[in-house]
């Protein structure tokens, strides 16, 4: 029963973070939420008995993709700032 509760909680977290990262009005927050989403994915892999995937997801899904996205948003912000000036 409580295994199901744990899974339900995890699934809720996944869906919530995923949805929020898509609809959030602030782009930076979207990316943070996406990284959080990656973390939940890693946990989901653990629950699915796939530790290799969990490791990969943390490094690649959350880590590398997150860093790339952060870098992208940084440039975008820089451009926006230049425009304002």
């Amino acid at each position, binding site marked *: 029963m*409580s295994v199901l509760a744990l899974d339900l909680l995890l699934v809720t977290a996944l869906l919530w973070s995923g949805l929020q990262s898509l609809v959030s009005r602030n782009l930076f927050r979207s990316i943070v939420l996406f990284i959080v989403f990656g973390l939940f994915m890693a946990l989901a892999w653990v629950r699915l008995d796939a530790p290799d995937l969990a490791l990969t997801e943390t490094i690649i899904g959350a880590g590398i993709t997150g860093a790339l996205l952060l870098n992208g948003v940084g440039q975008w912000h820089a451009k926006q700032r230049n425009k304002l000036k």
Partner: protein
Amino acid sequence: MSELALILAIFLLANLLVALLRVTRRPTPADRMLAALLFGTTGVALLLLLAYAEDAPVLVDIALTLALLGAVIGVAFVQRGWNQEREEENGRS
């Protein structure tokens, strides 16, 4: 998985969800950074717990990676996010 470990895990996950709420509702930027760091630590704790409960040492590696990631993201956050967040707040209000 023992009942105790499970309950602990659920508790930690609930913590994460609360942290998530902190990120999505718009508090101050500092709140957000703290929430993000909380993710890292709670995540690590959760993974270690699962490693212990399911007797799967490989999860410890994942926990370590996550800890590292938490640090990196924290730095990136401060470097990139802090100022912009504040600017956006100012720009909007």
